[in-house]
């Protein structure tokens, strides 16, 4: 019943869409991890203003739909004179949005570490940054890999929203093709397959890292 023959001529456009999705996902995820880690340490710091600020940050970027964030920054910021090109806007928006989720994931990890480890680190003279980087973060990562992989996968799929600011990626190409060829199933299945391949790559990578770490330090 399904007919995939119309797919062939469309392959080059699809490929371009895939490339855009991959490019955006990788750059946004990197940005999200970096900002998420920084935000998380701020969130757990002793300073009240910092804590409140990061709470607001998380509330905003987690609560407001990414679609709206994208539209705000692309269509409203120009009204106050900030006119940024589409791709960087998309990367920053998606990155900031995922950083809010990552902040929370990491926070759970940090808070579930037993305080004793930090204390023994303080007593041998490691400074705050070193404790985070060498004592806590490695363990937090071990604990939160499944959640981080969840987030990475969600990000890859959420990247489809960037089409609202005129960037053509995988989902957009697929919808266009489906609408024009009246073969939604064939095209959607193809897109689903591509997403599946991208995401299971991420997932398998995560499981591999997880197994490697766990095999060494059992709790």
């Amino acid at each position, binding site marked *: 019943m399904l007919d995939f023959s119309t797919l062939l*001529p469309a392959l080059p456009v699809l490929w371009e869409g895939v490339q855009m999705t991959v490019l955006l996902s990788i750059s946004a995820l990197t940005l999200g991890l970096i900002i998420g880690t920084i935000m998380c340490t701020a969130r757990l710091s002793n300073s009240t203003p910092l804590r409140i600020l990061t709470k607001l940050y998380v509330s905003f970027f987690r609560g407001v739909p990414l679609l709206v964030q994208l539209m705000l920054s*692309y269509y*409203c910021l*120009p009204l106050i004179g900030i006119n940024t090109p589409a791709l960087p806007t998309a990367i920053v928006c998606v990155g900031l949005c995922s950083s809010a989720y990552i902040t929370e994931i990491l926070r759970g990890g940090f808070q579930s570490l037993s305080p004793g480890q930090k204390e023994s680190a303080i007593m041998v003279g490691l400074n705050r940054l070193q404790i985070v980087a060498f004592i806590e973060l490695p363990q937090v990562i071990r604990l939160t890999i499944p959640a981080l992989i969840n987030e990475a996968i969600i990000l890859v799929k959420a990247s489809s929203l960037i089409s609202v600011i*005129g960037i053509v990626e995988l989902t957009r190409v697929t*919808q266009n*093709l*489906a609408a024009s060829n009246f073969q939604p199933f064939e095209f959607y299945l193809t897109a689903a397959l591509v997403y599946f391949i991208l995401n299971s790559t991420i997932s398998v990578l995560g499981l591999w890292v997880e197994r490697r770490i766990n095999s060494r330090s059992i709790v």
Partner: protein
Amino acid sequence: DVLSDVKSKGELVIGTELQFAPFDFLVNGKHEGLNKDFFTEVGKELGVKVTYIDLPWTSVLPGLEANKYDMVGGPVSITAARMKRYSFSNAISDASVALLKRKGNTKIMKSEDIADMNVGAGQGSAPAAQLEAFSNTLSKPANIKLYVDNNQAYSEIMTGRVDAVANSLPNIAYIASQHKNFEVVMPPFGTEAYSGYVFRNDDESKSLIESINKIMAKMTKDGRMAEIQKKWFGIAIELPQTPIVPKI
């Protein structure tokens, strides 16, 4: 103003959604359609390059308001409510509403047959409003189901959840011509309506609208328009060359 900006840039930028056959859509992965052909001519007339930005429909109009492009392709049905917020070109297409049904469905032979049947339409669209008005005139009103995306409504004809879908004639005519499973119920019903291109509702845009209207008139006169219409609608249609006063 916008026109002189376009000329000095050497580029006319159009925001549109490439899921709107036969106006803007992909053929074998390439952008084709009535708009493409029409604006190629416009480009030639104005001496500028034409660039398209493909966007989901939700963000097409906000993009226009944020000056991300000069005008919107579409076209969209010209209604009184919409005119409060945007300016429109003269009619580029007829937008009267007709029904799309599954080929061989003998229960619907004319528009009135949809009484008490399931009929789909685009959520909040002009055809939906017309369908509702029409349905209320029937012996038993139709059971109207609204979809956020017309393409899904069309799929529902095949799943059987709806018996027909109401949309503007050019769209469904093109679909029926391309897809062997569908058929158009003729003639159209409801109030006469037209669709046009969308512009910002400000003085800056006036010059651009005027020049596009002029080119439209010129092309109608020299037969280029009829050729394009034949290519995409199958027939040439006579359209009013004056600003539309919407009846819907």
